[in-house]
């Protein structure tokens, strides 16, 4: 079956092709005219669906997007490789083991999110634009998973980054726009440093598809740049500022995918472009691990004080990514842990993605699902509870299996207290999830039509999450977190009871730290930079202005004064005559004093007798003596 490897290409090209017809969904600029259909029909001739008046069918195309990727993930054996030397700068598409896991959960989550978006946003304003950007982001995401070489990774990364900016600012509310701006600035910074890193990697390893052994030759600079570049995407603490702002601002399916799959890409990048397992990087690994720990513990308290459920979930993603970074850091410090660690990270990422995606979609459903409110809402709440437990890693859930997979790395870490710290963090996360349930329970629902299919898709997701431990995990793994989680639950119920009795007890804590916490600092820093720039630029600007002014008025004065007849003086005969005779004299002197005359001048001037009759005679004689030769 030679066709199968082309599935790898179809995985990411297919959504790209769908992007344009979906974009046309809102009707081209001439909404009314009949030609509208023909244009888009010409392009997407592959879809024979008849054209309803408002052409909603294009919205459903987004659902078709992730299908090839899902098929590739399920059908293709690991290691199928496709070399396309002519595409871009020499593309190599391959399904490595980590890639396969990533592809699976990414495609799954994109599929469910696209179902959700196709139905929920169908009648929304600018649906076409959202659909197109959604597909572009999906294509970028899939391309970088499947593409092994540097270029594909960077191309996917950039496309995904820019497209998701469009998703974030879809609602065009002021907060969404501000979030979008922050997101874009930080994403671009990340991208640029990733570009520099990849260039140096390509140069130092000499190949565009560096294997872990080639990567051992890397020096400090590329590693730092990769860590910084992907750290922004992963939400490493000082660089996480955009995450809590962007995710809540984006529409539900977008934030589900953002939190679920997009931020996981950073881990994939690190796994691919850092010498995992082949070289011990004690200092970089330690730094990453410490960063992870810091992120893990920083995000929890801030998340607890948030008011918006999506902000809480965003902070929980940040902390979970902190945990994964910790594990990766440990693996980097101790290469022997690599095989176990990488598998653990992949599994953990998968479980977190599905759970977090489900939670976000659940929040969406909680807000808008309308069917017979009596029956649906409790179901939604139940689902949310289950997903929260899975996220926390309660026993018998996917979280437990994932934690079990990761535990050996944590235990083997040379810092003994790491395991204890992780346990405490699990309790913290449980508290956070409790807070989330409390808040989402309190949200009022304003129902909107058309949430049947999203509900079904959500239910499917929950079923998958439920099946996750039994399909992948070994029996022993089900029992992990058996101590930490119940403790967390107990604490959570206690606090809930206390808060329920007198609500204003915790009131001051809520909203203490606004989402995107450190961003507040940026305003003064920005002002400082502007002031410094102004202070530096002003003198140069003034100098330039002065010079320009001087030159212009000089030019003006010279050019505009009336030409006047300067030549009048020259035209006077006496002046002209004087000049002329002056030149004549100069010429004679120059000729006489010239060397040809000097060397044989004597022969010609014998002094013979002179008779001069006129009055000038004396002068002539005087002149003769003084004659040059």
């Amino acid at each position: 079956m030679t066709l199968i490897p082309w599935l790898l290409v179809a995985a990411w090209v297919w959504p790209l092709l769908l992007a344009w017809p979906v974009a046309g969904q809102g009707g081209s600029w001439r909404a009314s005219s009949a030609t509208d259909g023909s244009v888009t029909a010409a392009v997407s001739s592959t879809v024979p669906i008849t054209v309803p008046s408002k052409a909603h069918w294009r919205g459903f195309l987004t659902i078709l997007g992730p299908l090839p990727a899902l098929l590739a993930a399920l059908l293709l054996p690991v290691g199928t490789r496709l070399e396309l030397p002519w595409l871009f700068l020499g593309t190599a598409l391959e399904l490595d083991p980590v890639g396969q896991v990533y592809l699976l959960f990414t495609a799954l989550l994109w599929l469910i999110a696209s179902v959700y978006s196709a139905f929920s946003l169908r009648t929304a304003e600018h649906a076409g634009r959202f659909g197109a950007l959604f597909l572009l982001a999906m294509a970028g995401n899939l391309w970088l998973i499947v593409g092994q070489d540097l270029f594909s990774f960077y191309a996917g990364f950039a496309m995904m980054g820019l497209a998701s900016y469009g998703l974030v600012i879809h609602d065009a509310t002021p907060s969404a726009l501000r979030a979008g701006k922050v997101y874009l600035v930080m994403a671009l910074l990340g991208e640029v440093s990733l570009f520099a890193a990849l260039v140096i990697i390509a140069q130092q390893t000499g190949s565009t598809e560096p294997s872990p052994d080639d990567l051992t030759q890397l020096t400090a600079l590329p590693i730092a740049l990769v860590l910084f570049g992907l750290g922004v995407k992963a939400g490493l603490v000082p660089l996480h500022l955009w995450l809590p702002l962007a995710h809540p601002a984006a529409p539900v399916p977008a934030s589900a995918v953002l939190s679920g799959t997009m931020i996981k890409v950073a881990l994939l990048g690190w796994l691919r472009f850092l010498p995992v397992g082949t070289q011990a990087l004690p200092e970089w690994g330690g730094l990453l691990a410490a960063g992870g720990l810091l992120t893990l513990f920083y995000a929890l308290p801030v998340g607890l004080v948030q008011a918006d459920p999506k902000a809480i979930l965003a902070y929980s993603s940040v902390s979970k990514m902190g945990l994964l970074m910790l594990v990766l850091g440990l693996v980097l410090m101790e290469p022997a842990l690599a095989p176990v660690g990488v598998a653990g990270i992949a599994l953990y990422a998968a479980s977190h993605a599905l759970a977090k995606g489900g939670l976000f979609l659940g929040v969406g459903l909680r807000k808008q699902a309308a069917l017979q409110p009596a029956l649906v809402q409790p179901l939604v709440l139940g689902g949310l509870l289950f997903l929260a437990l899975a996220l926390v890693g309660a026993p018998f859930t996917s979280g437990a299996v994932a934690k079990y997979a990761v535990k050996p790395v944590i235990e083997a870490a040379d810092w003994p207290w790491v395991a204890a710290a992780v346990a405490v963090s699990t309790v913290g996360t449980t508290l956070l999830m409790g807070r989330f349930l409390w808040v989402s329970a309190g949200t009022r629902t304003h129902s909107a039509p058309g949430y049947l299919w999203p509900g079904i898709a959500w239910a499917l997701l929950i079923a998958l999450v439920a099946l996750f431990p039994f399909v992948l995990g070994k029996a022993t793994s089900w029992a992990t977190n058996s101590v930490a989680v119940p403790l967390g639950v107990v604490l959570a119920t206690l606090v809930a009871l206390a808060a329920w009795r007198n609500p204003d007890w915790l009131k001051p804590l809520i909203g203490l730290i606004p989402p995107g916490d450190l961003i507040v600092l940026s305003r003064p820093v920005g002002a400082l930079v502007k002031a410094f720039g102004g202070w530096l630029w002003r003198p140069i600007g003034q100098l330039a202005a002065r010079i320009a002014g001087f030159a212009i008025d000089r030019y003006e004065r010279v050019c505009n004064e009336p030409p006047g007849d300067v030549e009048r003086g020259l035209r006077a005969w006496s002046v002209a005559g004087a000049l002329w005779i002056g030149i004549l004299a100069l010429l004679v002197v120059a000729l006489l004093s010239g060397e040809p005359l000097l060397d044989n001048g004597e022969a010609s001037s014998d002094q013979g007798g002179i008779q001069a009759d006129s009055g000038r005679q004396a002068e002539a004689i005087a002149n003769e003596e003084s004659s040059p030769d």
Partner: protein
Amino acid sequence: MSQMLSWTALLPGAIVLSSMLPGAFIFLVKEESHVLRGVLNMFGAIIKLVLVGTLIWGVFLGGVFESRLTIAPGLDLVLHADALSVLFVTLSSVLWLVTTVYAIGYLEHSPNRSRFFGFFSLCVSATVGIALAGNLLTFVIFYEILTLATYPLVAHRGTPEATRGAKIYLAYTMGGGVALLVGAVWLRALTGPVDFVEGGVLSGMASTLHPQLIAIFLLLLLGLGVKAALVPLHGWLPQSMVAPAPVSSLLHAVAVVKAGAFGIVRVVYDVYGVDFAAELGLLIILGVWASLTIVYGSVKALTQDGLKTRLAYSTVSQVSYIALGASILGPVATIGGMVHLVHQGIMKITLFFCAGNYAETLGVHKVSQMDGVGRRMPWTTLAFTVGALGMIGIPPIAGFVSKWYLGLGAVEAGQHWVLLVLAASTLLNAGYFLPILYKAWFRPPPDAWPNEHRFESRFETMGALLWPPVITAAFCLIAGLLAAAPFSPLEWATLIARREYGL
């Protein structure tokens, strides 16, 4: 004249004449006879393309194409086609065809079109002449003819601003031309006739002459820098944006500006030889100057509200990429510089075409008026987006490829600071392009456009105006996506680098 002039000797000359002769006839064409003028234009463009095609094939097989005309004893007008010149010739001829179509559409009812298209063809012949120039004298001759031929185009509209812009343009380029002339003559006096030879001519000069050679390089750089819009000498570019869109797209994005950059590449590689230039420390000067221009151009572009002026400043910064590529020692950076010569051309011409479309169809001249343009003109704005993202260097569009090779070359040569410059430039480009895209796609359109006039065409604007930007945008994508394919700009640039470095 006695020996039979084989076609290899005639081809370069024919290429230059293929646009000059129609141009000369167009001058005499009456104003109302559009068809004749159109036919002459297209005839010239297509013939040139065919000839260039055969030239590409010939040079690829290693053939030598040279037409030599002795103006006076010791002064030869030489048109010699080597790999580098073919790159530039192909770029200008392809884009000339596209721009001619665009110009015919753009200047539908405007006056003085015979004069316009006459000078337009003259410009292209001068550009092709510059590309094919075989020695420094021919280069200087065609360099000045280009100045002469572009002056009437910039002043074409006849408004006071147009004449003022043209006057400023002339002041700069005339000064530059004279500097180039003095440098060329000084070099000619020192070393005899200066033919462009791959790998450079001057490496064998006595060391006593080195200070003079450095002075000559600075003079040549000054002369070429005016057209390549290096920082202090770039003043004319934003001013000459008063010219009609086809002029600012072909000339100020491709022909004139590239002539300067191409000149710098010629001088560095084929006159001095890149190793000798490095030995004299000239590459450092060029590198620093180019980097300054890159950053300065982008910073200035941030503050410009006029769409075309912003694009002009972006050109100022982008063209210096080529100079930067030339200033880094190493084949990879050379490839980066050369390929950017093509990529910047097709991307920038797309942007200028779109700017022209907005101006012509909606009367939008300022970035602040660009709200909701995406809704009104989706195809043009899509082309604009492709061009803009390409300029920023977002893969898979062509801009990324050249930025990648420049970066790789810089790192290979150990000049890591270049990465910093590239990063800064990318961010700044994003800084002034993304807001435009945001306004175009995400802002609601105003209730009435400044002066919209609907064309009876089936699409958003006239066919002749719409298809050129879409085609060039497609070129950008193809040049990016199929960069590694044979006969792509990247492959040809690699061929040039291989021949320049004698690998």
